[in-house]
């Protein structure tokens, strides 16, 4: 059974990301359960998707410390759900912060380095993706989710490979968005490998 979590901020495309993972897993003949935040909590709030793949999955929610991997779309959101990660679980995190309006108002904008330092101290298997570089190369910020799926696929956390994910992209997305997403997916894969080799 594979348990993984996606954490981000409403509007970052976490729901589509979990749908794509589920679609790829189902094409491999695996049973899938997912659950996520929809509705009031979505408007700029923290969002978490639980994705579980394999046989005999009962609960849609993952227990704390049982996730093999967390894909953090935003550094503070990754820290927020760190307690779900298993002792030797993998954390892939994009280091671009999304500052909430509340912090702009109160003036205490959080520091990304505090989040990444904390993750470095507490996660054995950590890959920090340079969000600025990723977004610059992808050009369209709306494809950040798919780029991070590219990174995750390279890490080997999915019970399927890159080609399965590409099939899922092609079968799930509207025609006009396929090329740009496939491009971002490949960029995510490459940047993950560059990051891992450098680190």
């Amino acid at each position, binding site marked *: 059974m594979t348990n993984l979590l996606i954490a981000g901020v409403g509007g970052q495309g976490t729901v589509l990301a979990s749908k794509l993972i589920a679609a790829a897993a*189902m094409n491999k003949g695996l049973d899938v359960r997912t659950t996520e935040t929809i509705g009031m909590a979505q408007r700029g709030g923290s969002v978490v998707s639980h994705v579980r793949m394999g046989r005999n999955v009962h609960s*849609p*929610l993952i227990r704390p410390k049982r996730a093999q991997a967390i894909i953090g779309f935003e550094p503070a959101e990754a*820290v927020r759900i760190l307690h779900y990660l298993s002792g030797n679980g993998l954390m892939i995190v994009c280091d671009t912060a999304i500052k909430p309006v509340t912090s702009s108002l109160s003036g205490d904008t*959080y520091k990304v380095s505090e989040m990444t330092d904390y993750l470095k101290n507490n996660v054995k298997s950590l890959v920090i993706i340079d969000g600025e570089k990723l977004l610059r190369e992808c050009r369209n910020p709306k494809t950040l989710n798919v780029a991070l799926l590219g990174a995750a696929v390279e890490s080997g956390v999915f019970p399927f490979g890159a080609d399965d994910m590409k099939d899922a992209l092609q079968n799930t997305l509207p025609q006009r968005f396929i090329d740009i997403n496939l491009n971002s997916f490949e960029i995510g894969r490459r940047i993950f490998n560059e990051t891992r080799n450098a680190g």
Partner: protein
Amino acid sequence: MKKKLLMGNEAIALGAMRAGVSVVTGYPGTPSTEVLETVAKHNDGSIYVEWSVNEKAALEVAAGAAYAGARSMVTMKQVGLNVASDPLMSLNYVGIKGGMVIVVADDPGPISSQTEQDTRHFGKYAKLAVFDPSTPEEAYTMIADAFDYSEKYGRPVLFRPTTRVCHSCASVEILDNIPGKKPEGFEKSSRWVIFPKLSYENKIVIEEDLKRMNDDFSGYERNFISGSGKKGIAAGGVSYCYVKEAIENLSAGCKLLKVSTTPFPQKLALEFLKGLDEVLVIEELDPVIENELITLCGIHNLRVKIKGKLTGHIKNAGENTVDSVFSSIMDFLGENTAVTTSVPSDNPPELPVRPPVLCAGCPHRASFFAVKEATKGLDAVYSGDIGCYTLGNAKPLNMVDTCLCMGAGITVAQGLHRVEPDRINFAFIGDSTFFHTGIPGIINAVYNQTDIIVVILDNSTTAMTGQQPHPGTGKTMMGSISEVISIYNVVSALNVSKIVKANPFDTEAAEAAVNAVINERGVRVIIFEAPCIFVSKGKDKYVVNSDKCTGCKVCINKLGCPAIEMDGKKAKINATLCTGCGICLSVCKFGAIGGERND
């Protein structure tokens, strides 16, 4: 056999279509909305689908269809059933001919609701059966069972999924359609006209039927017992899945009762209780199964201890989680719960708080801002209502002082005004909520000559639940175009003395609209018209000229727009979020915002 990844709400919709539903009505509400939308999406034209003006109307339309022998389904969220409770309570006394399923989604947490009410109580109160699925795949087949039971007893049935069933996805095996029969049509008979004498006679039959359902549901395949031991766990809904997961790898065995219906399957439960010392009951939201078991032990003089919410073993507010259930079960079964995995040794840094906020470019922000500016220094109370605009309560707008339920803003404002007539009372209401239950409140104010200002925030959609059409949009769920009902014309037909309209993004005109009515008496209505960012195309985005920006933060402190943030000592507009609404231009005294550019 074909498996498909379905969200619980999609599974309910496709399950109902498989069972031959031919009329589907509802009012949007999280977490129920996608049920009706899925039927509309897959409709080949053979099913009549509508978003009704409110839940009461939806339930009555579906009841009429079921009188004529059609299988009908109504969808709503739990608080929607409060609105529809009048027809619900009476309908059981009259009965139906075609199967009628009322899907009411409960929201433990609550995640997106005003209350944590348990619809199973409504079932008991209305003396109707309730089906309570645990997973999307169970919901897919259970909805067909619900139609069968409804027809078997000639009564509507309730179907209560919770958020974690509605909004979780699972691999669901798609089954062949169930062959159905054509609706027989409406037959005139005295049975359709409710009278006290008829109600008395029917009450006797209702009570007999409840007993029959008790027996019937003991044999229903979705109520069942597994495992063995001296200790037992009874569970229903998604909590059953948490229990299954928790007990899977335990050494100590236990007996497990899964309950999917009320009336409670008493015979089955007696079999479950046989030989048990104690039972732990795990369910969401209220202790319904728990109370049934306690009652059963009393009636049959059984010495079984029942533990759950009433005894403090299970929390009685908020949603269950696999972890909260896990620790309760470990305690109950006396299992070792020593933590083996490492926990982060140092405390995490302070995390940013992310309350939900109005989107960048949201017209509600502009409307609230206009009223706020126009009433600066005045003693005004701002009553709010249910919708995205409830988020106007947050800083820096602070423009929602009350929020109760659909349509209540207009009437609560009237009550406030009766006690403190010297304060100015504003009531904000959205377009969909105006049609839902706002109109009677305005009539009440006009009739009783109350001094209030109603601000209708018309963004051309039901935004909070995901942009559903309503009577003011002229679009229907059958894909047809209907006559647009003009909010202005409705309000003027109600004899409102003063009505003004403005585009809230035209900040001067918007403030002028407020000033035009503020010193008048009687009921005044301001209609702010600008579409939701999800139904209109964004315009050119704006940027901050950092040479001109003084870093005064007035734009941030006045508007609280998620697209404006501080980048060092200067304001910066996030190009991904900006929709080009332009209200920040009017706020900046230094003319630093502008530099319109095409993206």
